[in-house]
């Protein structure tokens, strides 16, 4: 199914990844590889283990066995904040933003500087920070809402804000968990446009149910079922795979 075994060429190489929760294998001997600058979409029915895969990569859940190599570094043994520093960013399923802070402050916290305690104490909001925050805010359509408290944003705007918080972090691998869930049609179109703009010079791993949206953005699709890969390839190939139609797309 996969070509060769040279993890060096891949940005992310997941091999033999297994996690078991009290004997239930949520992810079972999973292997897949993500190239530089690739948009990979993971689809699959509920409970297929999609979110767990992202949890494993970003360190939220510890793997029972297997390896996750990112640019040749083993992530399974690293702490969450170290994984972030190697260049992996993660967006959660529900918009995970800081309601009590302003949009500006939300973005500023993700700016990759002053991440230690004393770094944060002595952090100054200089021109570089301000410019970058404005630049990202413009990208995520929130330029004129910078001083607004984040809890006043709409659901879609919150999703964008979290994407913006990841952008400012400038990760090499961006992982998005259902970025368009709960969005209106026009918001979806804008999000697709946003994602297409921000994938330059980075790889993106997306979990999504919206097939129209998947078609718009995916380079390659991985279908998960019961913690294992059911099918992998281009959207067209996956959509015509009888196994996929049976367990997922057929419904």
């Amino acid at each position, binding site marked *: 199914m996969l070509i060769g075994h040279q993890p060096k060429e891949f940005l992310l190489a997941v091999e033999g990844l297994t996690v078991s929760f009290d004997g239930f294998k949520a992810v079972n001997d999973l292997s897949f590889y993500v190239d530089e600058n690739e948009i990979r979409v993971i689809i699959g029915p509920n409970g297929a283990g999609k979110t767990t895969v992202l949890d494993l990569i*970003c360190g*939220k859940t510890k793997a029972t066995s297997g390896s996750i190599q990112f640019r040749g570094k083993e992530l399974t043994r690293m*702490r*969450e*904040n170290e994984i*972030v*520093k190697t260049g992996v*960013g*993660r967006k*959660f399923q529900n918009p*995970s*933003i*800081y*309601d*009590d*802070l*302003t949009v*500006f*402050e*939300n973005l*500023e*916290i*993700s700016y*990759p500087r*002053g*991440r*230690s*305690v004393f770094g*944060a*104490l*002595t*952090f*100054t*909001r200089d021109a570089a920070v301000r410019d970058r925050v404005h630049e990202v805010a413009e990208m995520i359509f929130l330029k004129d809402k*910078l*001083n607004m408290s984040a809890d006043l944003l709409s659901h879609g705007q919150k999703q964008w804000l*979290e994407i913006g*918080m990841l952008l400012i*972090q400038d990760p090499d691998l961006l992982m998005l968990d259902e970025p368009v869930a709960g969005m209106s049609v026009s918001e979806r179109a804008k999000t697709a446009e946003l994602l297409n703009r921000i994938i330059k010079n980075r790889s993106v791993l997306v979990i999504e149910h919206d097939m129209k949206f998947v078609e718009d953005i995916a380079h390659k699709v991985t279908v998960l079922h019961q913690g294992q890969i059911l099918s992998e390839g281009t959207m067209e190939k996956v959509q015509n795979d009888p196994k996929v139609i049976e367990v997922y797309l057929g419904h």
Partner: protein
Amino acid sequence: MTDNRFVNRSELIGILVLAVFLVVVLPLTLDVFRLNLVAKYLTYAFVALGLVICWGYGGILSLGQGVFFGLGGYCMAMFLKLEASSVENTKIQSTPGIPDFMDWNQITALPFFWKPFHSLTFTIAAIILVPGIFALIIGTAMFKRRVGGTYFAIITQAVAAILTILIVGQQGYTGGINGMTDLRTLKGWDIRPDHAKIVLYFFEVGCLFVCIMIAQFVRHSKLGRILVAMREKEDRVRFSGYSVANFKIFAFCIAAVFAAIGGAMFALNVGFMSPSFVGIVPSIEMVIYTAVGGRLSILGAIYGTLLVNFAKTSLSETFPELWLFGLGGLFIAVVLAFPNGLAGIWGDYVQPRIDRLIVSRKPKPEGWTDSSVADGAPAE
């Protein structure tokens, strides 16, 4: 809002109002006895200030701040006690030159850990470092293992109980349940007469404002915003590349150091230190001061401390048995009805009215004049 300034204008006014209240109004209107009571109350304000950072901003509820208050207080009391136990002061003892309670407990030589407390420099360093390092150890042990919330609160209570038992049990080294009494002089300067009480009061207020400025600095730094962010979405902060545990440890340590400074001030102003300020009940009372004042407000916590303590003094004189029920009821009422305490009531109801009044009466840009400062004074 978008600037990294230390204090903004309305906060500066608030601080000035508090300064006028503490430095001018109270000393002019109260007799020395009452002023000394205020000094005692203000020692708890240090603890409340630390809790604003730790609990209000960081969301870490510590029910054991009495531990740090006590550690700071005992460090200061040990120095003062040694000075009061000079050979000529204690010549009637079987071993002159050691604190009286040691003599009563058949201890014949000063224990090794008491010896450095002959030095004031060492004592001042110990007041900061002993509680700071102790908080660092507890914080590291808890937060690195991701113990938080209720579990953390319970553990801090346990620590408070353990320390109380330890102090009471080791009577010969600590003075036991009576604590360290009969503290007399600081470097030869008598701390007991009225004029000394007044000097100590002003010294304490000075220290309090230094701590307020430190708290302001922390709050307005990015660290302050990270604390707020952490309180809301801990995972988001963690996956933005921060070590959440380190930030919690920092907040806990700074609260501990503030509490310890308060404890040291207590020993100086009140003239004794005892385990009754270390245990679970005083620790919870300190949380109530913060809750009543407003756990998100640096100045609110100070007014809350003063108000609850004034109420405690006047009510417990009249209804000694009922007072504790009143305090408990007050805590429940504040949490249910006004989760942001006095500061919340002030910000939601009083401040907007004053603002409107100023805008409607004098529309010139310098709306903040003497009259508005005077209006702002009785925040309690």
